[in-house]
């Protein structure tokens, strides 16, 4: 592969833009395809499929075997709350291939010392979220217990079609939350998308165990519900 082509592929990924690398296995010829180039391409159907599913695939085209390396934006995890659970969740999610961002306007919590190497924004969600551009490849997890911080983030995540939306809190806390969000004009079927109580029911007790439960639930939605993401995209 040409180094310039590899670097172009890497640049597209860094910019969170979907790309397919086409490799003719016989000749070794390669090219990059962007979603806007699919129409009119001889491989239009398999290319469209690769963009839709995010899955790489081998295609037989006459006598030529062509490999499509699908590269869709990597899953992202946005967390409100630079709290104890987040300190465990952020490194776990990073290991599992998520790009992680934490938002918390409370500067005592949102420090680089508490979150080494993590993208951490000491800002209100209303300030931080527009720049992050939530999308269907993003999971939003609200962990502050503070409606002033969590509610706007949850609202933004529902509006953006995030593939997972979860909020920490008891059933009673969540019932109050649903009432507030309904008051902001969110429809019941939208609100039903919020996972609460958050995380898989594995009897978690410690912050790290709760982080495992949350990450497990996020991954389940990522891998089992591709259709929702496609509809929202």
């Amino acid at each position, binding site marked *: *592969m040409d*180094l310039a082509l*590899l670097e172009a592929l*890497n640049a597209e*990924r860094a910019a969170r833009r979907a790309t397919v690398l086409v490799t003719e296995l016989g000749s*070794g010829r390669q090219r990059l395809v962007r979603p806007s180039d699919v129409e009119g391409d001889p491989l239009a159907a398999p290319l469209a499929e690769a963009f839709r599913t995010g*899955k790489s695939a081998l295609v037989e085209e006459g006598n030529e075997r062509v*490999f499509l390396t*699908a590269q869709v934006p990597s899953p992202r995890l946005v967390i409100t709350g630079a709290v104890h659970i987040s300190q465990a969740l952020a490194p776990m999610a990073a290991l599992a*291939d998520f790009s992680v961002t934490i938002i918390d306007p409370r500067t005592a919590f949102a420090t680089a010392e508490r979150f080494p190497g993590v993208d951490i924004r000491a800002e209100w969600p209303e300030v931080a979220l527009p720049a992050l551009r939530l999308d269907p490849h993003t999971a939003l997890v609200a962990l502050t217990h503070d409606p002033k911080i969590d509610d706007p983030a949850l609202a933004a995540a529902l509006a953006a079609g995030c593939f997972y939306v979860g909020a920490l809190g008891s059933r009673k806390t969540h019932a109050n939350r649903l009432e507030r969000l309904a008051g902001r004009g969110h429809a019941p079927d939208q609100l039903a998308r919020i996972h609460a109580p958050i995380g898989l029911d594995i009897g978690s007790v410690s912050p790290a165990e709760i982080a495992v439960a949350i990450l497990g639930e996020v991954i389940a939605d990522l891998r089992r519900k591709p259709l929702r993401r496609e509809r929202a995209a």
Partner: protein
Amino acid sequence: MFAREEEVLAAAARWRREGQGVALATVVQTWGSAPRPVGSHLVVDAEGRFLGSVSGGCVEGAVVAEATEVIADGQARLLEFGVADETAWQVGLSCGGRISVYVEKVD
């Protein structure tokens, strides 16, 4: 070091820019039970340093050896591994599946 899938391609470009000979291995086809999905990458340099995986560790040794030859002669190759290929290869997949791996030089 553990590498995320995207770090493998980033490393391929970085190593090449640093002047290393580099080959990229990609799983292009799987049959039956295969340890890594189609599209998985392994990057190898001329000294045999590697990052990523194309199987659960079953055939990486053979791919790395083949990759150093790809770096030397510049010719891409399509390798097949599986229990059915025991006579052709000394290594195989204990899971019983088969995989096809494309190895190309980064230049």
